[in-house]
């Protein structure tokens, strides 16, 4: 016999984990974008100053 209450709890726990993973992925992607932007700015700044990046 299927325990629907237990299945519901399991489903909620899985959804919570998935939501956590999604937020973590969003954070990582945002951080990578910011990092690449910062690296580009530093490199371009050095080139504009006439030095090596």
């Amino acid at each position: 016999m299927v325990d629907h209450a237990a299945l519901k709890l399991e489903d909620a726990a899985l959804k919570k984990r998935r939501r956590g993973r999604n937020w973590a992925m969003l954070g990582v992607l945002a951080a990578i974008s910011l990092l690449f932007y910062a690296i580009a700015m530093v490199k371009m700044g050095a080139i504009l100053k006439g030095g090596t990046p």
Partner: protein
Amino acid sequence: MNETATAVIDDGRGGSTPPLAVSGISSAADWITLLKPRVLTLVVFTGWIGLLMAPGTLHPVLGFTAVLAITVAAGAAGAINMWYDRDIDAIMSRTARRPIPGGRIEAGEALGFGITLAVGSVMLMALATNIFAAFVLALSIGFYVFIYTMWLKRRTPQNIVIGGAAGAFPPVIGWAAVTGGIDVMPVLLFLIVFFWTPPHFWALSLYAHADYKRAGVPMLPVVRGAKHTRRNVMVYTVLLVPLTLAPWAMGLTGPVYGISALALGLGFIWHSWRVLTDRQNAAGVSQTKDAPARAAFRYSIAYLFVLFAALAVDHFVH
């Protein structure tokens, strides 16, 4: 497939991989665990010190990126290591709850994760600093994965002696990120971590040897016995201490580092002596639940942190 699945997979290496993973039940923390975060703290620190000690300057953003690349690369190597060692991890109590043997992440996912991070970290290093630093970074990943994990770990009790080189790369990479080359100082830092690794791991293996034996990993206490291991802990510590004094003797650092290295080294020798002279039976098996070995293991971690911190302090006052 469900959470209680316990099917054993023949992995073609004489081992097995229980249980099957359940797709989608991993948490973000599981993926972070794959990176071996506790090991990463030492990698970040020694890499940063290498960067700091190097002559020349690097923009803070690029310096941060270089340390990040070293960290991600070490994490990637750790993830690939967990993928390869999933069969023995399932057997050892210390590692049985890791995400792959715990069935929360599939082996293939962990491998893909590790390879992606490895490639990404090398590209990031090349982009932010220089090709040489990226090359050494790639070399360090390759050394840990292919030389240590796949070749040495299951074949020889000297696994951590030679494999220890993998953990010694970060200060060299940090230095290379700034200078684009290698000098005497990063080589000395490499050697310090290289010679520190055996007494550090052998102290651990003295009290965790049952785990290694069960998994068939030929750690020194399993193959040559506890007595031989105790002697080797002492020998490597005695070799390490003069090596840590070399930067001072060669005029590359000041007395702050030199005196710290001497005091820390004497402490390490004292701990190793206690391991050697621990109350033991004829086979060298401890009668004190390996209290000295546990203390030596804890001390060895603090030792390397404080030694490298002394380098940083000395750098600013020298």
